[in-house]
């Protein structure tokens, strides 16, 4: 069956360090992958999209990689700040009707 796994544990890092979040998937062949940010009590907000033929995508302090051989995406936040504390979700297009399937998310806490 199709499965998406994100870091199961909450991730705590020190301010200024680089946070790296992992999204692994099985039994998918997604054409693209997306990352969202979700703050408590709010809906997810889109951050980045990366296509299967792109190895890396950057936006300001954010970087996403997509390795279709390893079936893995890495999400990096450089020079992390306490304001980056949130839950980060990865989502894969499942190939039918443009539906996205979401991982359960990784809760990131950046400590001052």
């Amino acid at each position: 069956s199709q499965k998406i796994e994100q870091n199961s544990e909450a991730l705590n890092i020190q301010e200024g360090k680089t946070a790296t979040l992992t999204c692994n998937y099985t039994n998918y062949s997604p054409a693209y992958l997306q990352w969202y940010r979700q703050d408590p009590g709010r809906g997810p907000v889109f951050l980045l999209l990366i296509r299967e033929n792109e190895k890396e995508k950057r936006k300001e302090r954010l970087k996403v990689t997509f390795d279709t051989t390893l079936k893995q995406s890495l999400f990096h936040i450089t020079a992390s700040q306490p304001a980056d504390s949130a839950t980060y979700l990865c989502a894969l297009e499942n190939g039918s009707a443009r539906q996205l399937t979401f991982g359960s998310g990784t809760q990131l806490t950046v400590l001052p």
Partner: protein
Amino acid sequence: NAGVTQTPKFRVLKTGQSMTLLCAQDMNHEYMYWYRQDPGMGLRLIHYSVGEGTTAKGEVPDGYNVSRLKKQNFLLGLESAAPSQTSVYFCASSPNGQGPEKLFFGSGTQLSVL
């Protein structure tokens, strides 16, 4: 622009009661979605709509019905609420479903079924 607006924000129901959640978007998007979010399980798609007057089942449709009578509105109904439907419900929309698109989410409805 308000984006995607969900009402109500909170609701408590007794088992067996019915209710309707309303989602409205002002971005002229074709596609609309209803997800539920439970701890440790991520967002799961309940139903979606590819345009006015059309609806389709998602991953977890049982116990829910939807309607899209107007392009800007997508309603989610619970005919006979069960405790298993206690969850946070999110509505989302996307422009036209053609190619990779980001979803725009509402702020959610916290539903408790006692």
